[in-house]
């Protein structure tokens, strides 16, 4: 008997705007508790919400990336409920008219339908102790976007890849760093399982508390198997909220859902509806960063990079930015990719730093690569210079001077003199060459390189060597 799982996802993304969604308080992550607040964030009586323009621009950009219809008017509503982490006793959100509707993302050839995207404000963070709970209001009021899919995903793989793609989108748009571990991207999943033969969907179970990308797939696969097993042993699936238990790689029941909560939504009258002109929306989109998916196509079609290289370069925005900076100044795209992926990544990993902390700027790297590619220096020398640049934090030119590297000789006369000298001392190799032994040519060129200390241009040397050999036929 076959089964089909149906998955829907709700993703909350914390934006890294300068100020909060409705207050002028700066946004700060991992700061001293209760230092990034204004009276509004603590719900002091009489304070009022003022919407954050940049948050709106961000939301428009994400909507666009998700192929959504963008509303031309902004409406906010109150979601009313009492909870200890909710300062005002209500959250300002967008209920009736979310800024984005009806979008999609294509994941592994499957279309994930996105029902809505809306803006809202985050709650305070609770720090639980055995006998009491402390509240940190730094998080209260940080802008959130919530992205809700339709129940249209049928595999853990696609679900996990979808979340990964959302992370990629928000981080490349610089809307959020999207770090799940730090709660900047939070994901609630609804899963149900039905027999292939059943018409209706099975009972929906919500899984919360998945706080790492790696856990999404594991949690979903576990939950799907759990539900299949339950169906097979004729157990009833209970509509409930479960949480992911990292230690046991399993989902655990949190609470059974009775009637859904009535949030008594109604319009937020302290924010009059805001007209979004087509120009405002267009400008937000026009000035938006290039998406990873767009870069992927550009790297492949224009730069001719392979999929592996592309995936490494696009693994983070700073890395991609570094690559793009280099690619603006040099057309040796593949070489840049190689240096970035092999030499630079090795260095970053070894020193446990990010590309942002890397001292060699794109300009400095490009200077080195251009010298090598135009044949001024050999690959071996280039690596020597690179090592020196890293160690001494100097540019290519200075490194060359200090290392006393004058550069590869492309001087025809000087190379020819060297070639003649080597040929005079290797009669046997000349004979071998004329006898059709190709190895002899390589040997002779190697001798020239050795003699010169690697400072002759290899292709020019090769050309001259062949000329001189042919003269001695």
């Amino acid at each position, binding site marked *: 008997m076959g089964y089909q799982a149906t998955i829907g996802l709700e993703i909350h993304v914390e934006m890294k705007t300068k100020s909060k969604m409705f207050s002028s308080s700066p946004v700060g992550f991992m700061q001293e508790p209760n230092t990034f607040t204004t*009276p509004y964030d*603590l*719900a*002091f*009586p*009489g*304070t*009022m*919400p*003022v*919407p954050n323009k940049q948050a709106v621009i961000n939301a428009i950009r994400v909507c666009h990336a998700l192929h959504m219809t963008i509303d031309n008017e902004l409406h906010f509503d*109150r979601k*009313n409920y*009492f*909870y*200890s982490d909710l*300062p*005002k*006793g*209500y959250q300002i959100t967008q209920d009736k008219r979310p800024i984005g509707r009806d979008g999609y993302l294509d994941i592994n050839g499957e279309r994930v339908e996105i029902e809505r995207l809306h803006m809202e404000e985050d709650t305070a963070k609770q720090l639980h102790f055995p006998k009491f*709970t402390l509240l940190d209001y730094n998080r209260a009021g940080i802008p959130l976007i919530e992205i809700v899919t339709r129940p249209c995903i049928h595999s853990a793989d696609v679900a996990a890849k979808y979340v990964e793609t959302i992370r990629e989108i928000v981080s490349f748009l610089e809307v959020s760093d999207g770090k799940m571990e730090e709660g900047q991207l939070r994901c609630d999943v609804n899963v149900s399982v039905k027999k292939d033969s059943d018409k209706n969907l099975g009972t929906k179970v919500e899984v919360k508390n998945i706080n790492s990308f790696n856990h999404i797939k594991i949690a979903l696969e576990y939950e799907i198997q759990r539900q299949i097993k339950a169906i097979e042993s004729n157990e009833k699936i209970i509509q409930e909220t479960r949480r992911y238990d990292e230690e046991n790689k399993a989902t655990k029941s949190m609470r059974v859902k009775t009637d859904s909560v*009535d949030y*008594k939504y*109604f319009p937020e*009258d*302290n*924010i*009059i509806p805001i007209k979004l002109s087509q120009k405002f929306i267009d400008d937000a989109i026009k000035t938006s960063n290039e998406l990873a998916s767009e870069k992927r196509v550009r790297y492949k079609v224009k730069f001719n990079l392979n999929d592996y290289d592309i995936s490494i370069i696009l693994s983070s925005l700073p890395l991609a930015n570094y690559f793009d900076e280099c690619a603006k100044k040099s057309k040796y795209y593949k070489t840049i990719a190689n240096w970035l992926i092999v030499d630079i990544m090795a260095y970053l990993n070894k020193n446990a730093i990010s590309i942002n902390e890397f001292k060699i700027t794109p300009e400095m790297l490009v200077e080195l690569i251009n010298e090598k590619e135009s044949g001024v220096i050999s690959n071996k020398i280039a690596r020597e210079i690179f090592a020196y640049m890293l160690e001494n934090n100097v540019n290519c030119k200075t490194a060359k001077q200090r290392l006393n590297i004058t550069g590869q000789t492309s001087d025809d006369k000087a190379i020819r003199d060297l070639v003649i000298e080597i040929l005079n001392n290797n009669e046997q190799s000349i004979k071998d060459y004329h006898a059709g032994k190709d190895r002899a040519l390589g040997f002779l060129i190697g001798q020239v390189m050795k003699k010169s200390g690697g400072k002759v241009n290899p292709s020019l040397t090769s050309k001259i060597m062949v000329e001189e050999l042919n003269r001695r036929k």
Partner: protein
Amino acid sequence: MSYLDLTILDLHKALVEKKVTPLELVKEAIDRLKKDDNNAVEYLMEKEAIELATNIGEIEVDNPVWGIPFAIKDNFSTKDVPTCGSSDMLKGYVPVYNATIVEKLLKKKAIPVAKVTLDELAMGGTGATGHLGKTYNPYDPSHKKMMGGSSCGSASVVASGIVPFALGSDTGDSIRKPASYGGLVGFKPSWGRISRYGLFPFTPSLDAAGYFTRSVKDAAMLLSIVAGEDKNDFTSSNKPVENYVDNIDKPIKNISIAVIKEIVESISNETIINQFKETLKIYQNLGAKINYVSMDKHLLQTLFPTYYIMSCSEATSNNANLDGIKFGPYFDGTTYIEAMKNARTKGFSERIKRRFIIGSYSLMKENQNELFLRAAKNRHKIVDEVNKILKTNDVIFLPASPTTAAPFDNKVDQLKDEYLIADNYMVIANFAGLPSITIPCGFENDLPFGFNLTGRAFEESKLLNIAKALEDKLPYYNLSVRSKK
């Protein structure tokens, strides 16, 4: 007569002429507040006021509020000064910021001398429901008559001649009704004209900050000072602030004044009706046109229920921060839910809880359509009707209340038109966001009553001009208990 008994602008003259100093004024106001027996004070700002008056510096000739003492309704946030909205729920709460309207007056060196009472959290119209009990109407020394509310303390101290002006707030008629009972000018400008930042919210789409004065000109002058766009209040208007005194004495010839028949007809008090007719004659003599217009009586009967459902619904949400954890007294509990339940059960009065329950009920999914949304739709219907009247008329003119100040133990039939219509129609100005002013127009048995003028949105200048024209023809300029004696 003391200088303190003057209107703001007359008092300003005395200050300029150095006949009196701000410190003398403040000391006298504090003295009167201490002697006052109308239970109008939440917090006496004695120390703060004397310090401000002492360090005020040189007289500013062009600044009419320089050194003028005033009172603040206790639902305006005042930095470092306790603000409780006359509710036990906020007893001991000391805000960390000033409401914008307060901040603007402080910048202009007006001197607040007291935070004054209101109906608990501004929800009420009697001035009897604050946590300190009844605030009395100074016109009735026997303390049987109400001041009206919710801005009872503000009305009381201005009517007593303790201060020349006081800040109030108006969601249904909370400034304009007590102004009628207290023989005062009570003014609420257009929605968005004065920033609401720092005003404890009751029903944000209806709430307006305003004030009581003893002259229309004072009201006009104050508006130029406290109006304007505020970055902290997204709903504040960016329309330029005018000099509202400039046009205040313009002739009102050819002005069209609408009188809504059904509202006048629902009033039974003959003194009020006769005086109303007299004032209409005054307007006619000044060259104004009086137009009797009609409004659907059934629609008028829905004013109060519409207001009640809207305001109770929003009030539940606006006061949800008062949960005993963030704000309000902490009454233990084993869970956060228990702690919140305890705080909200013990902290709010029964009246407030009743409103919250009605509001909550109206917002429930299964009731929203029938109650909350229906009220919202009806509001628009009412607004359309009123704006139709104002399309062809400059103002609507009506008695501000069907009676003089009612006794506290008054039993009214809440289903009679006199209550449903005449006692509650002023909410029209809140529904439509219109500027509206009550001015004193007569007395019955030593108790004052006022009439109300409501104009087009953001046409405060014209409204004040029309109000002043009537004030000039009546003997009630600078009316207070003291000047009356």
